[in-house]
């Protein structure tokens, strides 16, 4: 979780990742940032994020991202 926060900060700082629940729907993260984020997460956590998983629900909050990461790690 800490590592995720670091990545998020690195991609776009100045957002309250702890509490924000609408990172995508609220236009805090642009589609380009999501692209970076996906590449970074895959590298960092050794997972594959298939296209199916790229939905707002999975990226709207840090928590949602974390649970997705864990799920994908388990599946592997």
């Amino acid at each position, binding site marked *: 979780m800490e590592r995720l926060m670091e990545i998020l900060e690195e991609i776009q700082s100045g957002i309250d990742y702890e509490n924000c629940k609408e990172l995508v729907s609220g236009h805090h993260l642009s589609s380009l940032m999501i692209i*970076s984020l996906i*590449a970074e997460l895959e590298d960092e956590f050794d997972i594959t994020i298939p296209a199916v998983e*790229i939905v707002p629900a999975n990226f709207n909050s840090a928590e949602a991202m974390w649970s997705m990461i864990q799920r994908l790690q388990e599946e*592997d």
Partner: protein
Amino acid sequence: MPLSSLFMAGRFSQMTSYFSLAYLAGFLPLTIIGYSIVPKKMKKYFLLLCSYAFFWFISGKLVVYLALSTLSVHYFGIWLARIQLQRDEELKHTEKENKKALKKCYLAKQRRVLLFAAVCSFGVLLYLKYTRFFTMNVNAVLAHLHLPLEFTIPSFLVPVGISFFTMQAVSYLFDVYRGTIEADDNLFRLGLFMSFFPQIVEGPICRYGETAGQLWEAKGISYANLTMGIQRILYGFMKKLVVADRLNPLIQTVFQNYTDYEGGVIAMAAVCYTVQLYMDFSGTMDAVIGTAQIFGITMPENFQRPFFSRSISEFWKRWHITLGAWFRDYIFYPVISARPMKKMTTAARKKIGNHFGPLLAGAVALFCVWLCNGLWHGAGWHYIFFGMYHFALILWGNIAEPGVKWVTGKLHIPTGHFLYRLFQIVRTGILVVIGELFFRAERLKAGFVMLRSMITDFHFTTLDKALLSKMGIDAYDLLIVGITLLIVLAISILNEKGIKIRETLAKQPVVLRWAVLYGLILFIVIFGAYGLGYIPVDPIYANF
């Protein structure tokens, strides 16, 4: 190929659109009555029967395309499901460390099936729609090289709606492959999803997960759904009959004889065309979604007041939404999450930073999307240009974003201010109008000539009564179009603010409710552009 010849395939050529008399006074009411009479268990089959009947009425024998497409998709879906089942069986008996390899192996298998199925589906579409364009271009090249070789240009009867149901078919297979839905073992349920008559001609492009279940449930017709559905259809009617059809002569005249007109008039025609396209397509969608609502089906919306968009990329999230979403889910994301793309993104990000790093991969994916988008609309260089135009605009928007932020920050421009937002909306509108100009132009060159005269020769000196009558309209036509657009604008603003008009209306006393409906119907009857002297627009989106 003229659209009429496309429809002549069927015996009931007068049932050409959802606004035709034969459909509205014949087919639809009969279907509604039949649907409410047949026993609950049979309703879904009745709906399937009516859908095929409808397709047969307008396309005749070409209905086999729809049937074959459904059959093949059904088969491929089951094939994919069996591979998945096999995989799960084997996974149970496999050691943990081997699981990954096994999964990969099965994924590759699935991918091959999916690829084969997609090639089959799109192959038919490409063959029917693009062979002509392709041969014509090959001939042009051959002629250019002075080779004494020429291929005969084939022409096919293209079944109505093939671009739409092919998209649905492929999205179904993709979703099965990804495991978001289960393959359908019931051919009839899948058949109804593919053929449901209100959406077969112009969409919206539905996902299996969205509508198949609802359709198969085949609830009865409820009073609330019936009235609300009819209201929505009437609203669509107003857009189509009062605005789209009324503007038609002007647009046709100017786009056909564009060299005869000065830039101002061409600009006016270009704006009129964008308005017409929106009114025709979104009006048809109102009719489609309203019809579906009568049968208790909630369809995905295709428009979300696109002309309030502040950028081109936002515009395309609000215009023909289901098409954009299709390209996003089945082209943009797969391209962007392909392995080499991700590697490129990671590498680039380290060198050129967070904003520009992912841009390269994004641009590649975006290019694919817009090439497909252009081609999907038809075989022609102007469609390809239309796609590339939007690709360039959206890409530029992304590249320029930090710059714009910096400038507005430095100059203390209040980006949240109403006037700034208005500026953005108007700018986006102008860009859209230019795009649609190329979209409508007879050919690419015509589009450029028109654009040039719009820029270099922007006058309205000749715009008078005589010119209007030459373009087949008069000041009254423009007046009534203006009034109707104001009504649509008012409704759009209310919608934008989250006010649900039909729900609000339903709560009003019956006198007011009926008065509004009577008013709307009379408005359409009197101000609609139909009858003697009017030729309705061919449903614009039906031939894509």
